[in-house]
Structures are given as structure tokens and as C-alpha cells.
């Protein structure tokens, strides 16, 4: 019995060792990863990110790969769960990954980036906008999208300028992203207008019915409801406001930029809703070639597809410039250069944020999201 157990232990140990050795990258491959919510209610965002990164990797491989090696793309699913994000970050390190494009949710990016920082892996997020992502000053962290304090400011400027005298209410969904954004908007609005918002509160994200909190808002007769949160909840909020007879315009951030928002709310209900997002990709001349090849390969271009594409390009350029598979050297190379992207030239400040605030205001017009001029 004892003898059998010893043999079993040896077999098990050898299997583990064999497994480990197969984990490291082969000599002729450079492993990079894209991580986002590939399943669950945000699965579309995850797929957009993966497709964008894949397009970039395919283009690099077609031009001969990097450092003389082929690039292999791993796709990780954090299921919008911070715990899962952390264990994936560790897994990517054991698999020899030096560059991660991700994550989507700030609540996943922030804890996972502790590991990327510790392991000197380059992480570039195409979508996490919470200021805390880069405010900790980690050397290997970058983001190609904007920050919530930037988009909160743009939203506040818009309201102060175009809706003077409006009664403003604020709701958030209690997530890192949603509450952070709502707070940034409120702080900027109160500073710029020298007025207080008339209501500040929260909804429960898992809930479907927000009519109770909206009913409390109704006697205040608000003109604007600023919402920090994502499109499924924003859609329900607009729908239930109209059913209760509330006329207030909903304004939200980049998390609401999705056609599903209008479908859930109903096109008539959503008409006139505002949100802050990056500029219209269809109107950027430099982006059209990439958009065309993306469409041919994967179908419709999502809001974060091109950001993911450029995040991967910038990361790979960093490695190429450093000339070695070394996260710290690659990060230093990214910090010291400027990149030609479909959005125009991008360079990073010391924290890893893009230098210029990219946000513009969009409005729902005849059931479609349209970028509107302001400033």
C-alpha cells in the first residue's frame, strides 16, 4: 500500500513538472495576452477587445513577428470578477506573458495591476477609466482611453454651458467605475456652477426595478439625471423614468456607449440622452483602413475594438524598441516615445495616461448615437 502510494506520488509529481515545462513559451514564440469579460453580460465588450488585439497581432505576424519570433495571443476571461482577474494575472505570469492588454472593468484592472507591477509585466488597458488605475504610479501600467476625472469634467462643462439653471440629480451603481465617475461629475459641476446637485443616490446594479428611487426623484422635478454606471442599468433607468412620467434627460459616461442602451430604453424614451465618449471613429480619416480590415475579419467595430487594437500595437512597439522580452525596458521605451495611431499621435505622461483628454459629448438622435459639437 505504502509502495503504491509512493509510485502514485512520483507519477503525480512528474505530471506536474511536465505540465509546468509545457507552460513556458517555446523558444520561437512571444506570448502576449488580452484579458476582459468574455462571458456574462459584458461578453460583447470582451469579444471586441479580443478581436481588436487579434487584428494587431495578425498584422505584426504578417510582417514577420517580433524580435524574430512569432507572436502568440492568449485570450483570458476575467468574467468581470476581480478574483478571477487576479488569478488570471498570475497565470499569465507563469505562462511567460510580458504584455497584457486589459482589463475592461476598473474593479478588475486595479487589483490585477498589482500583480503586473510586481512581475514587471506591461499592462495597457483600453477601457478602464477610473483614476486610481494609473494614480498609484506603477511604471509598467498604461491606458489608451481617458480618465473619469476628464470625462466627468467634460460632462460638467457641457451641463453648465448648455443647461444653465437645470436641476441636476446624480445616481451611481456603487461600482468602482460608476461611483468614481458620478463623484467626479458632481465635484466638477458644483465647482463650475457654484450650485449644489439636488439629489445624490445609488441604485443596486443587480436589481431590475429602480422605480422606487425614481419616484423619490420625481417631486424634485429634475431636468438632468447624471448616471455613473453601465448601459444595461442606464437603459432601464431611462425606460422607468418615462413610465413614471419623469422628463429628465439622462447623461452618462463611456460605459453607456452601446447601441443596446437605446434598445433597452426604447428609442423614443432614449431620445435626447447624452453621454461622454471618445470621438466618432467613423469620422477619423486615419482609422478607415483599419476599420475596413476589422469589419472584413470580425464584423461590426465595437466601442473598444480600436482601443484594444492600438493598445496591442503600442505594447508590441515597446517590446520591439526595447529589443528584449523585458517588461521594465519595454515600459521605459513606451514612456519615452510617441506613437502614430488611428486616433492620431499618442504619448504618455509619467503616470501612463494619454496626454490629451479624448472626451467629446454624444447624444441620442432618432434612435442613434451621434457626436455633437460643443465648446
Amino acid at each position, binding site marked *: 500500500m505504502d509502495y503504491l502510494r509512493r509510485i502514485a506520488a512520483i507519477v503525480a509529481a512528474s505530471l506536474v513538472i511536465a505540465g509546468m515545462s509545457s507552460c513556458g513559451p517555446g523558444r520561437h514564440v512571444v506570448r502576449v495576452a488580452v484579458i476582459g469579460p468574455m462571458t456574462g453580460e459584458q461578453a460583447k465588450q470582451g469579444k471586441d477587445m479580443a478581436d481588436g488585439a487579434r487584428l494587431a497581432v495578425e498584422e505584426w505576424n504578417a510582417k514577420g513577428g517580433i524580435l524574430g519570433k512569432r507572436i502568440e495571443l492568449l485570450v483570458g476571461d476575467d468574467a468581470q470578477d476581480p478574483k478571477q482577474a487576479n488569478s488570471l494575472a498570475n497565470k499569465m505570469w507563469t505562462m511567460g506573458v510580458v504584455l497584457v492588454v486589459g482589463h475592461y472593468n476598473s474593479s478588475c484592472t486595479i487589483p490585477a495591476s498589482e500583480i503586473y507591477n510586481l512581475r514587471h509585466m506591461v499592462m495597457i488597458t483600453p477601457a478602464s477609466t477610473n483614476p486610481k488605475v494609473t494614480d498609484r504610479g506603477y511604471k509598467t501600467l498604461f491606458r489608451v482611453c481617458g480618465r473619469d476625472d476628464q470625462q466627468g469634467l467634460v460632462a460638467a462643462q457641457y451641463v453648465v454651458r448648455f443647461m444653465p439653471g437645470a436641476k441636476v440629480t446624480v445616481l451611481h451603481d456603487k461600482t468602482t467605475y460608476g461611483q468614481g465617475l458620478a463623484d467626479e461629475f458632481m465635484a466638477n459641476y458644483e465647482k463650475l456652477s457654484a450650485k449644489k446637485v439636488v439629489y445624490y443616490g445609488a*441604485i443596486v446594479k443587480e436589481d*431590475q*426595478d429602480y422605480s*422606487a*428611487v425614481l419616484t423619490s426623484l420625481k417631486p424634485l422635478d429634475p431636468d438632468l439625471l447624471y448616471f455613473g454606471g453601465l448601459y444595461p442599468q442606464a437603459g*432601464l433607468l431611462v425606460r422607468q423614468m*418615462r*413610465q413614471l412620467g419623469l422628463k429628465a434627460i439622462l447623461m452618462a459616461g463611456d460605459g453607456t456607449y452601446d447601441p443596446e442602451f437605446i434598445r433597452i430604453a*426604447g428609442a423614443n424614451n432614449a431620445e435626447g440622452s447624452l453621454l461622454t465618449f471618445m470621438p466618432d471613429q467613423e469620422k477619423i480619416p486615419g482609422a478607415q483602413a483599419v476599420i475596413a480590415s476589422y469589419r472584413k475579419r470580425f464584423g461590426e467595430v465595437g466601442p473598444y475594438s480600436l482601443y484594444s487594437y492600438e493598445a496591442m500595437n503600442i505594447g508590441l512597439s515597446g517590446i520591439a524598441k526595447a529589443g528584449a522580452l523585458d517588461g521594465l525596458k519595454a515600459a521605459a521605451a513606451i514612456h519615452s516615445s510617441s506613437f502614430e495611431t488611428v486616433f492620431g499621435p499618442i504619448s504618455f505622461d509619467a503616470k501612463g495616461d494619454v496626454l490629451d483628454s479624448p472626451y467629446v459629448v454624444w447624444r441620442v438622435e432618432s434612435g442613434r448615437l451621434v457626436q455633437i459639437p460643443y465648446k
Partner: protein
Amino acid sequence: MTGAGFEFFQQIINGLAVGAVYALIALGYTMVYGIIELINFAHGEIYMMGAYGGIIILAALMALGLPLGLALSFALLGTLLLTGLYGVATERLAYRPLRGASRLAPLISALGMSIFFQQYVLLSQGARDKIFPVELSSGGFSAGGVKVSYIQAAILLVATLLMVGLTLFVGKTRVGRAMRATAQDPVMASLSGVPVNGVIALTFFIGSSLAAVAGFMIAMYYGKVNYLVGYMAGLKAFVAAVLGGIGNIPGAMAGGLVLGVVESLAAGYIGGEYKDVVAFGILIAVLIVRPEGLLGTRLPEKV
């Protein structure tokens, strides 16, 4: 009307609409419990599948070019039949073979069915929200600032009709008497010539159809469903059934409406995050203080 008065009545209206849906689901729990003393934990998933069935049928009918009113009615009828059959199949496959086994076995089987249905919908329909295919009017009836939207009115009307119909069916018809007989004593009922298996299957069919109607109306109300909505709705309806007195049909209706209104007031006056706290607080309080529920009568030892 003053702001505070308006707010109170509006919260009650909102609560009644949701409560009517809870009541319809709770009826399925309570009827099944009344007849075979099983807490059918797959019932929340039946409700969710009713919503999916309705949306899929409605989208198909709209694509065929049917007028909206007709398409809505046929979709409701279609999902009612389809989901009823799901309920009957669940009983036949997962519960009937375990009849006479220990009480725990069908309970665990019910949990298994619940997970099975959730994953079945996830795999066949995907994880994304399923969106109601037509945009319905957001208008409604207003009086003194209190607004009852058309959809809320439709929910209340349909739920009331179904509850009255069910009460008459169980209380006045021959089949209803067979159901009551089976609930009281299945052995004696079968000796008197009642086809017990058929009656139980019918009970599952009716309970599941009511849940399907609830699912369809909630899809209409919120405009979307996903494969996870059955879990919380099922739990809430279970609370409603216990609150009214499990096994008691008028109790389930009252329990659902009371729960909906209490939840709505809690969310409005304490805060949205306290809604579930209050709902499940009620469950605990009822179980401790009055386990037979609002309208129930004390029965000998049951699970």
C-alpha cells in the same frame, strides 16, 4: 396632491405591479406544495423560460407581419402552453420517479433542475440580455401626479383575471375538486377514482403557465431579461408564498401583493439596498412568529 402624498401612492402603485407578478409566481409554488409537499425550486427558472419563450415567439410573429395586439396575445398564449409543458416534463422526469422517496430527494432534484434550466438557456440563448422586440408606449393614466402606466395597468388586469379564474377553477369545477382531494389525501383520492398522476401533472401545468405569464409581463415591463432573472424572482415568490401561508392559494396572492408593496416602500423610504433585506427579513419573521403565514392554517409536520 402634495409631494409626500404623491410619492407614497406612486410607490404603492409600483409595488402592486411587481407584487402582482410575485403573486403569479407564488401561486405555482403554493399549488405544487399544496399537492405534493415539494418546494419546487426550479419554479423561478420556469418563470425565466416563460419570458424567453414569449420574446422568441413574439419576435417571430412580428417578423411574419402580424399586428401588434394580435402578436402580443398569441405570444402570451404560446409561451403559456410551451412553459406549461416544460413544467409537466419537469414533474414527469425529475419528481415523479422520486415520489415516495425521502423528502430531501425531490428537493435536491428540484435544485438540479434549476441549474439545468439556467445553463440550458445560457447555452442556447447566450449570456447577453434578451431585449423585448417591440417598443411599447410609456404613456399611462395620470391622476393628481400619480401615474399608472399602460403596462402596469395591463399587469394588474391580467393578474387579477388569472387569479379570479384560478380561484373559480379550483373552487367550483370538477377538476378543481379532484385537485383539492389529491391535496388532502392522495391515496384516498385515487381510491375514489381520481387520476392522481394526471391531477399532479395538471397542477404543474397550471403553475408553470402562470409563471410564464408573469415572465412575459415582466419582460414587457422592464424591456429585457437574462438567464439569471429566475433566481431572485423565484426566491421572492417563495417568500410571498410563505408569507401568505404555503399551500394556500388566496394566501399566495395576498403574500405577493403585500411583499411587492412593502419592498417598494422600503426601497423608496429607506433605500434601494434595503429592499432585499426587508423581503428576506419578512421571511425570517414569518417563519418564527407565524409559520402558517397570513392566511394559512396550522398543519401537521411538513418540510
